[in-house]
């Protein structure tokens, strides 16, 4: 079993849902990220989505755009993010880490090199926002060979036909995007999401995690009722932005959010 499968199995056995925070790697500075990851786990996170910053984050709203700008301005790079994961792994061998980003920096490093370096660092999965399954034939096998899951998105606009194709490709988990829009946009409709997810369940046994529009304990708990995992990003990245100049305050602020969501989800 992979680390991700083990985690979902353990949660399942305990009757719990996965809480998956997203932060952008290197935001506000690369030297803070590893400690923030440990802080998230300590507060109750089950897995971590770590953003690889990109100069042109087309699928992100202003909050994560700014996070990318901060990270890049302080020297974040793809290899730098992999190094952060490698350090994280020295102290934490059980929490799955999924890298999330855009295709170009990974393609620029080369898929083989990236996969080998990511494996060595202890990365469990990669989600490339602008890599749809149609273009993934050259990428998925390379990642698979290194034991890295390729995580795909499914959106409200995804047709049944496409969803079947994506499900066939998926491993780790499937990321269901709850709303039409960019990260950090409107709140989601849980009933609608639940309906979509029950359709997807017929197609795959891969866990279904939901992101976009989750901002507090109540929305996390509500989504936890219908999904296997709850992904929360912009709310956390907002904390980082708020305390970018007082970095010692970031971890406590993140932990406050994570604890509230954990409690609400487990209640």
């Amino acid at each position, binding site marked *: 079993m992979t680390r991700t499968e083990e985690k979902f199995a353990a949660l399942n056995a305990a009757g719990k849902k996965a809480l998956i925070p997203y932060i952008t790697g290197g935001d506000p500075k690369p030297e803070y990220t590893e400690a923030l990851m440990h802080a998230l786990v300590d507060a109750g996170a089950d897995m971590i989505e770590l953003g690889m910053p990109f100069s042109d984050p*087309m699928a992100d709203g202003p909050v994560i755009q700014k996070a990318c*700008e901060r990270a890049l301005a302080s020297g974040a790079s793809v290899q730098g993010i992999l190094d952060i994961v490698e350090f994280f792994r020295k102290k934490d061998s059980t929490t799955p880490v999924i890298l999330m980003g855009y*295709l*170009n920096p990974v*393609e620029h490093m080369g898929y083989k090199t990236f996969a080998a370096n990511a494996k060595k660092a202890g990365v469990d999965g990669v989600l490339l926002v*602008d890599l749809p399954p149609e273009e993934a034939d050259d990428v998925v096998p390379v990642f698979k060979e290194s034991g890295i899951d390729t995580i795909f*998105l499914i959106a409200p606009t995804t*047709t049944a036909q496409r969803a079947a194709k994506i499900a066939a490709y998926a491993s780790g988990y499937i990321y269901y995007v709850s709303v039409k829009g960019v990260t950090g946009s409107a709140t989601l409709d849980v009933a609608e999401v639940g309906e979509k997810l029950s359709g997807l369940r017929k197609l795959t046994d891969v866990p279904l995690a939901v992101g976009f529009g989750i901002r507090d304990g109540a929305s996390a708990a509500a989504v936890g009722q219908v999904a296997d995992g709850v992904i929360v990003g912009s709310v956390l990245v907002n904390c980082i932005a708020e305390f970018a100049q007082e970095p010692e305050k970031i971890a406590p602020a993140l932990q406050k959010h994570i604890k509230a969501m954990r409690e609400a989800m487990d209640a």
Partner: protein
Amino acid sequence: MTKANTYAELLQLPDDKGHFGPYGGRFVSETLSHALEELENTYKKLSQDPDFQAEFDKDLAHYVGRPSPLYHAERWSRILGGAQIFLKREDLNHTGAHKINNTIGQALLAKYTGKPRVIAETGAGQHGVATATVAARLGLECEIFMGAEDVKRQSLNVYRMKLLGAKVTAVESGSKTLKDAMNEALRDWVTNVENTFYIIGTVAGPHPYPMLVRDFNSVIGREAREQSLTQNGRLPDALVACVGGGSNAMGLFYPFLQDEAVAMYGVEAGGDGIETGRHAAPLCVGEPGVLHGNRTYLMQDNDGQIVETHSVSAGLDYPGVGPEHAYLKDIGRVNYVAANDEEVLSAFRELTRIEGIMPALESSHALAYGRKLAQTMTPDQHIIINLSGRGDKDIHTVAGIDGITV
């Protein structure tokens, strides 16, 4: 396989997945995939539909004012002492550039698909103006995204768009130029995909845009080819066009791709000079990568981050280029070169003073290279330079360089 054979196959591109060799494709987040599939199917159907084609042709004739002349710049040719220069006068189109050919086509697609709202990105503002124009005519809601830097540089066009009823949104992220405007337009589209048609302004973006924008602009090359034959009794020896995203160049080149004897030159923005690194010439010195939904040549750093570009002309200030150009470069069908800002301004002034035609700064890149090329050729040879737009919008910029406030 003979060369002519290979060139004939170029006309069949892109393939089913929108690829031009290794370039192109559809690299978008999942939310947009379905909309792009729909657009592809709609376009496939309508491009075979005689009624749609007739409506497009009628609009080009009566609204845009086509065909645009192929003008022999006799005086300039004589002074240069080389090849005869012919200017394809896209500057005489309604709204002043080639951009309207494409917006007429895409607005018709919007109309057929029943979307009440259109959006567009714009650099120089020409595509924004052309989009606002067709939106006004069809009664569609219209929002234009424009880098904050370009809003300053092209204030005349900003006001034109507003007069036409469009909302102009200044984009403050990143380098505040065309690429950031495109990011923001894509973000808007993801959010409003149900009721919005995205009118992309160049042969870039995800499939099917590079194909359909090329097809709509190919009227330039079809006319130029026919005009060469009827006016001169022969095809030209060379074609020259500026390349930002590459729509005016693709429009001119495409109908000539099989004409082996016709050389082609795409002119990128050399900015302060290629050697300075301050330019917008991805085909000349960039590397392949993925941006804005397609694989193509990009200006990027060692970490695959997109870098800032520099050009005196807002319309060429873009770190990518249409994927079909990337392929035409690799197979050697088209030569890609650059003209720097200084050469461009000199060509701008020269055409204005010698022929009484004030070109857009974008088009002046083609003129700058065409001038050099002509001087290496003989008076019995012919060059067609695509005069993609008129220069009114750039008077502020040129006056500023001259130290004059107008």
